C-alpha cells in the first residue's frame, strides 16, 4: 500500500499544530522553519490575527522596513478593522506611503503613541530602542534566522513569549568585524537568533512547514536535497499542475532553446564558453538580458493551480538575480538598451522573500578565477534558485565545476560550534550536476 501525499492536508496539520502551541502551549517560545514559499507570511498573518482575537497584546519584530510594511498591508487586507500600530524610525520617509490609506493603522516614531493597539509592528532595530514597564504578552519574530543573536538580546525583554518564524536556508546574518572570540559560546552575538534561542532552550517545540507552494514539482526536490538535507520538504503541486508555454516558436538561438528547455523541465542552463572575466562579464550580462527580452517577446503564458486560465508572462512576473550589486546594475543597463524596463533586477540579499514566475540567474561563480567563501555561501545560491513558480534559467560560463573542485572548503574549525549544513561547496556541486542535465551551450555571435 502506498500513501498518497496530500500537500494541503500536511500543510494544514502543521499550521494547526503551530497555532495550537502558540495559542495554548506552555512553552515560552515556538520555532517554525519555513522553506522557500511554504506560506510563512500567511502563517505570520494568521497567527497575528488569532492572537489579537484572543485579546493578547502582540508585538511583531521583522528585520527590514519593507518586511514590516508588507506585513502591515497583509494584516489590513485580512482584517481592515484590526487596530494596528506601525512603529517607525524618525528618518525621512520611514514607511511605505501606502500605509497612509489604511484607516486603522496608526503610525508613530514613539511606542507610547501606539499603546493599547492590538498589534504593533516594527523592525528589530527600532524595537531595540523601546523601553516598557510591562512586557507584551506575546511576540512574533519574523525572519528569525536572518536576525542576529545580539539583536534578539536587545528586544527579548519586551515580550513574555514568542513565535519565531524563518527560513534556515537563506543568507545567514553577518558581522563586519571578527567575532571568533565568542565562537562556541551558546550566546555568540554574531550567531543567528534561533541558534542562541535553541541552545538555551532546547526543549522548545520546533515545527516545520512541509510544503512549498511556490516551487514547482521540478524544483522542490533539488532545492530540498541541496539546501535542506536534514529537513526535507515537498512541492504543493504536481508535475502536471503548472505549465509554461510560448506563442512564438523558438528561433533556434541559444536563448530561445534554453527558454524552451526551462519551460519543459523547470530548469535551464545557458552555458557560455569558458573564460575568466571580471564580475560584470559583458557577454554573460548580454546573455541574461537577451533571455529576458526573448521571454517577453515570445508571448509566454503561465498556467497554474491558481486559475484555470493561462496568465500572460509579463515583465512583473520575471526577475533577474545576481550575486553583486554592480552585476545587477550592468544587467539593468543592458535591459534598458533592449527596451526592457519593468523587470526586477537585484542581488540575492534583496530578492529574499520574493516570488516570480520565471527567474533568470547569473551564476555567482560564472567566469570567476577563484571561488571565495562569499560566492560559496549556500544561502546565496539557495535564494537565487528558489524564487520561481515555473522555471529558473541560469546563465553561466563553462568550467565552474572544475573551479569548485580546485577550491574545496578548507575553512578553519571553531570548537563547539554547530557545523552549518549544507556545505556551500557540496550544494553548489549538487545544483550544477542537476543544471548540467538542462544545458544549452551557446557562443554569442
Amino acid at each position: 500500500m502506498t500513501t498518497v501525499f496530500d500537500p494541503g492536508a500536511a500543510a494544514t496539520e502543521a499550521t494547526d499544530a503551530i497555532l495550537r502551541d502558540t495559542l495554548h502551549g506552555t512553552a515560552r517560545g515556538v520555532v517554525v522553519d519555513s522553506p522557500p514559499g511554504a506560506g510563512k507570511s500567511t502563517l505570520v498573518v494568521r497567527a497575528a490575527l488569532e492572537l489579537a482575537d484572543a485579546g493578547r497584546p502582540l508585538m511583531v519584530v521583522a528585520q527590514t522596513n519593507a518586511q514590516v510594511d508588507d506585513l502591515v498591508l497583509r494584516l489590513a487586507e485580512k482584517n481592515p478593522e484590526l487596530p494596528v500600530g506601525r512603529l517607525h524610525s524618525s528618518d525621512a520617509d520611514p514607511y511605505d506611503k501606502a500605509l497612509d490609506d489604511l484607516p486603522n493603522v496608526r503610525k508613530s516614531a514613539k511606542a507610547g503613541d501606539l499603546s493599547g493597539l492590538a498589534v504593533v509592528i516594527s523592525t528589530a532595530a527600532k524595537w531595540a530602542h523601546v523601553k516598557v514597564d510591562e512586557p507584551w504578552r506575546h511576540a512574533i519574530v519574523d525572519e528569525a534566522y536572518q536576525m542576529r543573536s545580539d539583536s534578539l538580546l536587545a528586544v527579548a525583554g519586551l515580550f513574555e513569549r514568542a513565535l519565531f518564524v524563518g527560513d534556515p536556508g537563506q543568507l545567514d546574518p553577518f558581522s563586519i568585524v571578527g567575532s571568533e572570540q565568542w565562537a562556541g559560546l551558546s550566546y555568540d552575538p554574531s550567531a543567528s537568533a534561533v541558534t542562541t534561542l535553541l541552545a538555551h532552550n532546547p526543549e522548545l517545540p520546533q515545527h516545520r512547514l512541509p510544503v512549498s507552494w511556490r516551487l514547482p514539482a521540478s524544483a522542490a526536490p533539488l532545492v530540498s536535497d541541496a539546501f535542506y538535507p536534514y529537513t526535507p520538504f515537498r512541492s504543493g503541486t504536481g508535475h502536471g499542475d503548472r505549465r509554461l508555454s510560448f506563442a512564438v516558436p523558438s528561433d533556434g538561438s541559444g536563448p530561445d532553446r534554453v527558454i524552451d528547455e526551462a519551460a519543459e523541465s523547470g530548469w535551464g542552463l545557458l552555458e557560455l564558453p569558458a573564460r575568466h572575466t571580471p564580475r560584470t562579464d559583458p557577454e554573460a550580462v548580454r546573455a541574461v538580458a537577451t533571455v529576458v527580452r526573448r521571454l517577453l517577446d515570445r508571448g509566454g503564458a503561465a498556467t497554474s493551480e491558481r486559475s484555470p486560465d493561462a496568465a500572460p508572462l509579463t515583465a512583473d512576473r520575471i526577475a533577474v538575480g545576481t550575486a553583486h550589486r554592480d552585476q545587477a546594475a550592468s544587467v539593468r543597463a543592458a535591459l534598458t538598451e533592449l527596451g526592457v524596463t519593468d523587470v526586477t533586477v537585484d542581488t540575492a540579499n534583496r530578492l529574499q522573500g520574493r516570488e516570480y514566475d520565471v527567474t533568470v540567474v547569473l551564476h555567482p561563480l560564472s567566469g570567476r578565477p577563484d571561488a571565495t567563501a562569499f560566492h560559496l555561501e549556500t544561502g546565496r545560491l539557495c535564494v537565487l534558485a528558489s524564487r520561481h513558480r515555473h522555471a529558473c534559467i541560469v546563465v553561466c560560463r563553462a568550467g565552474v565545476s572544475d573551479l569548485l573542485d580546485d577550491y574545496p572548503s578548507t575553512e578553519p574549525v571553531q570548537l563547539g560550534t554547530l557545523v552549518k549544513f549544507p556545505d556551500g561547496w557540496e550544494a553548489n556541486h549538487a545544483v550544477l550536476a542537476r543544471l548540467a542535465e538542462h544545458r544549452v551551450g551557446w557562443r554569442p555571435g
Partner: protein
Amino acid sequence: MSLISTLARLEAVSTGRAQPAATVRHRRLSERPLVFVPLTTAGEAGAPLGALVGTDRDAPHLLVVPQPRDRDLRFTFLSELADVVLPYIDAYAVDVEAAERNETDPETGKRVKVEVELCANAPQLIVPSRAGIDFVRLLGRSMRFRRTAEQDPETPYPAPPRVPLLGRWLTHFAERARVPGSSLLLAMTDVLARHWATGQSTLEDQHLGALLAWIDPPGGETGAEAALRAELARDRDGQLLCPPAGPATDPAFDNKLLAPAIERYDRARTALAAAEDGLQADDRLGDLTTAEREIRALVASRTRPTWDAVWRGLDRLRELPEASRVEERWTRDRWSFTGHRDRVLAGEPPQPRRDDAVTAANKLAAREREQARLEAQEALDDPLVMAGRRLSGEAFAGEVTEVVMAYSEGKRPSPRPLVTVRTDDRPHLGERAKVFRSLGGKPQSAEFVGYEGDPEDGSALIVLRVLDKMGRGKEPEEGSVPEKGDELCFTLFEHEQRGGAKLPDPEQTPWTHGGPPGEQVPEAADALTEEDVL
C-alpha cells in the same frame, strides 16, 4: 582586494619598491612607545623563552628563561617583565585631566553629566607581528588568575607580587587591540602593511623582515631580492640571517643551538646541586653562569634584529604626517586606558575567562561601530583611501557647475539649494539617496535629485539638494552652500556613527539568552600541576 591596491602591489613588483597605500599615517604613534619582542618555546602553550623590552631603542632590557620548563625561572621572567611594563603604565595613569562623561543617574534613571578624570595620555605597546599580539593575550590570560602569597597564603606555587596585575593589563591591551582603529597595542607588520603595498602577497607581508625589505630595501637591492634574503638566507651553520620576528623560533635554531645550550645549562645545574663542598660549588656556579650567559646571548641574537627592525619601521612611519582624525580615535584609547585603570584601582576582579552574553554583544556592537568609523575617517583623511571608495561607487568628486537657490515648503521655508556636480566617478546612487560632504569637519547632508543631461565626455552631471548645516534663518549662512567652481567630494556613507541601542544589564539577561548569569563569583585560578608550563 580593491583594484587600486592591486595596482599598487603590481607597481611595487615592477619598480622593486613598496608603493604608498596611504598618504598620511592612520595610527597614533606614541613619542615613547614600549617595544616588546617576545620569544616562546616551541610546543608549549605560551611558555616564554625570553624577550627584549623597553622604551630606549639603544638599551633594551633582555629577559631570558634559561630553562623554560622551570616554574621558578618563568616566574622570575614574568616578575622582571612586570618591573619594566608596570612602571611604564603607571607613569601614564597618574597624569590626568578633567573631563565629562554621560552617566545614568542610579536614582532618577536620567542621563547626567559627571565630572571624571581622563588620563592625559596613554601608554602604547608595540610588538613585531600579529602573532605577538596573540602572545600578549596568552601571557595576560596565563597570569591574571594567578594567586600571590599575599592573596592566598595556601597557594602551592605563589606568583610574584605584581604578576597577576601585569596579566590584567596585558589582557586589557590585547582586548583593546581587537577594536578597529585603536592604537594601544599595535603589531608593526599590520601598521606597515596598512601604509605600504609591497610586491608580495598579504601572507608574505606577515614576515616583518620581508615587509621592511620592500619598504626600505638596503642600497642597490630590489625589494624582491632583499625580501628573499630576509626569508631564507642562512649562515654557514644553517641559521637564518634574519630570524623570525617571533614569538616562534626557527626549528633549526632550536635544534642546533638552543637545545644543546639548555642541555649544558641543565647539566651545570645538576652538577651544582650535587656539589660536595664550597670550593666545588664555586667552580660549578661559574659553569652555570657561563651556561646561562650563553643562553642569554642566543636569545639576544634572535631578538635584536627584530628589535631593530621594529624601530626602523617606526622611523619610516613617523615620516608620514599623522591623519587629522587619529587624535579623536586616540582619545577613545585614552578613555579605554583610564577605564581599566579605574577598575584596577576600585579593586575589581580580573577580567573573566569568557564574556557574558551582554558584554559580548556590547563589545561586538562597539567594534562594528568603530570599524565603520575607521573606514569613514580614513577615507576623509586620505585622498588615496577616498580614491578606493570612489572607484567602488561609494563616493564621488567633481566640480560644482551650478547652484540654484530653492526652499522647502511649509510655514517657515528653509534653504534647500540645488547643486549640480560634474564628476567622472560612477557612484551607485539610488532614488533619493543621501550623500555627505565634510564642511568644517562636520558632515553636511544632501539628497540625490537626479542626473542632468548627458555630457559627451563620459562624465555625469549630478543634481543634489543640500539639506542641512545652513543655519536657522531663511537665507543660508555664509560659506554653508557650495559655490560654482568648488571642487567637492561627496560620500554615500555617513561620516559619524550613531550609538547603538542600549542592551539590558547583565542581571536582566532575557530567557532567550540563558537568563541572568547569577551571582558573580571570582574566577578560580587555573589548576596547578607539577608539570604546568606556565
